[in-house]
């Protein structure tokens, strides 16, 4: 593999772009693993890995997409080591979303977050990337290293599940149920990880 030495200005550019995507990495990580402190640990780990791998970053391409791949791989690795165990961040519980037009009951951010955490990991990340992060299906497919059709299918299933949970009020309550959900997620992760390489790609 050819690695060219970066100039000081290129390094400065990398640092600046990396700094800019940190809030997005935190948001993605928070959606992936329920607790804010664990999410931030994950982001710090991803930042160190990204910095160490900066020669593999193609200037001009999306720093957010590139670092999301690194974050995602760090998450999958940590999940398989069982670092995240049914944890849920209670600090979001008090925030209330604005009620959508035509809907009587406002959806709470905490409900949204809990519902999200019950989804299988691969559907959750697909929905986070497309529905929250604003990535196109194509970009999300690249980040998850799978086919575009697979991403579309995962997003569709995730949306259907969330719609069912949020409109029917069928959301698991608090920690005990989240632990159950996370066990299911852990079981699915082996499958996810088996189909996806761990190396970060540009």
């Amino acid at each position: 593999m050819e690695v060219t030495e970066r100039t000081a200005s290129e390094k400065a550019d990398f640092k600046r772009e990396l700094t800019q995507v940190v809030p997005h990495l935190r948001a993605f990580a928070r959606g992936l693993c329920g607790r804010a402190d664990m999410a931030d640990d994950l982001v710090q780990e991803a930042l160190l890995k990204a910095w160490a791998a900066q020669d593999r970053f193609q200037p001009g391409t999306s720093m957010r997409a590139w670092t999301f791949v690194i974050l995602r791989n760090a998450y999958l690795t940590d999940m398989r080591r069982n670092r995240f165990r049914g944890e849920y961040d209670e600090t979001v519980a008090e925030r209330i979303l604005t009620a959508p037009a035509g809907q009587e009951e406002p959806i709470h951010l905490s409900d949204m977050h809990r519902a999200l955490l019950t989804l299988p990991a691969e559907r959750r990340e697909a929905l986070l990337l497309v529905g929250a992060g604003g990535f196109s299906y194509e970009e999300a497919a690249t980040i998850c290293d799978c086919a575009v059709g697979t991403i579309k299918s995962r997003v569709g299933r995730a949306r259907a599940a969330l719609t069912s949970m949020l409109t029917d009020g069928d959301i698991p309550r608090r920690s005990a149920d989240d632990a159950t959900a996370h066990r299911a997620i852990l079981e699915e992760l082996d499958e996810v990880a088996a189909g996806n390489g761990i190396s970060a790609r540009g």
Partner: protein
Amino acid sequence: MSSPKTDKPGSVTGKAKDSQAQRSPDWANGLRQLYDSVVDEDLPDSFKDLLSQLDAKD
């Protein structure tokens, strides 16, 4: 039991629920809000420290 006239999103029946999942659901904006609420947070000092330490690693 069927109740054809209903305005409550929470009480849609099977068929309506399927079509509801197809279009952008009511909560879609909430997902973005959840994400943006974290993006808009002040960056904790630990990140500022880490970022400032990166240069020293070269």
